[in-house]
């Protein structure tokens, strides 16, 4: 459900920008905050607040990778797999996490707790390899550090 309060926040954003349409991305974030992912109702609420069609909103939502089309796990664990982390053994870190969690990258643990993802350069190359948990950084990750992290998340 998209609350009335959320809809009001979206409308306020539409007034804040020089053109209402600019509020589509921040409004999608609000919709996602409300429901965990982007639902039909979320798209409709954004369309109404911003004053564009639902199709239009959907075309924006599907372009950007951070809007989820399906409910993700409670905790999203992203492992950077780009070049600087690659040079610091991110692949063995990823393999270790896959084995530990019993899932492959892109999957969610059966209890819906943890989603494991590969990520592209997270602007933390100087402290590689790096993991993000729901947006928070864990840097210079060793296999032991990764285990401790998973212990905490489980």
């Amino acid at each position, binding site marked *: 459900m998209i609350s009335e309060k959320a809809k009001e926040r979206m409308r306020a954003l539409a007034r804040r920008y*020089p*053109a209402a349409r*600019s509020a589509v991305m921040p409004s999608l974030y609000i919709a996602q905050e409300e429901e965990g992912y982007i639902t039909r109702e979320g798209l409709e609420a954004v369309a109404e607040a911003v004053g564009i069609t639902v199709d239009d909103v959907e075309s*924006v939502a599907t372009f950007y990778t951070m809007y989820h089309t399906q409910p993700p796990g409670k905790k999203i664990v992203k492992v950077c797999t780009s*070049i*600087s982390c690659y040079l610091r053994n991110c692949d063995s870190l990823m393999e270790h996490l896959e084995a530990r969690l019993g899932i492959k990258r892109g999957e969610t643990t059966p209890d819906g707790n943890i989603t494991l993802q590969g990520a592209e*350069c997270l602007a933390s190359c*100087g402290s590689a390899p790096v993991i*993000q948990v729901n947006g928070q950084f864990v840097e210079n990750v060793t296999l032991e550090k990764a285990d401790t992290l998973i212990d905490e998340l489980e």
Partner: protein
Amino acid sequence: MPETEQFLLKNINVPGVDGIEVYRQHGGYEALAKALQSDPDQLVEELKKSGLRGRGGAGFPTGLKWSFLAKNDKPRYLCCNSDESEPGTFKDRMLMERLPHLLVEGVLITSYACRVKTAFIYVRGELPYAADQVQKAVDEAYEAGLIGSNILGSDYSIDVIVHRGAGAYICGEESALMESLEGRRGYPRLKPPFPAVIGLYGGPTVINNCETLCTVPAIIQHGADYYASFGTEKSKGTRIFGLSGQVKKPGNYELPLGIPLRTLIYDERYGGGVLNDKQVKAVIPGGSSTFFLGPDKLDLPMDYESVAAAGSMLGSGGVIVINEDTCIVGAIARAAEFYRDESCGKCTPCREGTYWLTELLERLEHGKGKMKDIDLLVDICGNISGKSFCPLGDAATSLITSGIRLFREEFEYHVTHGHCMVG
């Protein structure tokens, strides 16, 4: 004259400097006050004199760009490009997280100099803490009367909006960034017209990188001449070099342009040498969109002209070091995946080409490639580079063409032996 000066990072380790109070105790917002006493055009001249060049990658002279803003009656906008996502680059995130007021001050001075009334800070979606820090700084600055109507008692008014991206590398390209900010898919626009002429909402728009804007307060504070006394003849001042990969002490180091690559990598104050005391095999000098330099280039001065003359680009300042134990084919294959995944799909050479490049590289990497695949790679690169709609296509080819040029025997070894030469 001191050997170097920290224009950006001087106070980065001061506890609490991410808050407005401590920032002001250390001279923060004095440059803004000084700027508001000057005529905006004079500030543009000062920036021209400083020689500051864009730190986003292309190195375009900042003052010159400001002076190119179209003179018409449309509202003008400023957009800070904080979409940092070039592999090997991690300076803007640090600046936003730890010195958010420096960025806000840079945005305000630049807005005033360019007669802008609405400024945006576009922060990459994957960096929520950085965005929160910048939002907090903006809120504090509103509260303190530094943003809003008649700031610091002047007749200048300015609004600042922090906008979050949502996962798309292409939105760092300035025209795609404007599309995104206007609420559409982040597809690049045709350039020219440059944003300075037709930008956000059709108005003349200044777009600068986060580090570029963070450098502005120091230039106004200390004067263009002092700033320009560091660096080289054509590459003035200091910039943040982000050192990563196989070095002992990776990190962000603010140093004068023209510093020898060897100093950056080996000096105890900076990189401290190659990991496990190995030899350097290759260096990517400016983020993964730039060309490899071989170990014969270690004495290269790190300024725009010298790096270009050596066949690469200073780019975003992200210096990635690769040692002798690393398989170059594997490293290139990994870098190529990035461009395949991030191609926005608008034009065919890049969309299809990056896919084929990755397929071929993975095949070679896993020992299943053929000799002719190596030439095919070069051929496909030739069909992407210069033939794509935006520079992402070109960028996808740089490590492949330069990698084959420098390390062809490693590619061939993969074909003849079915595995790599090293490790």
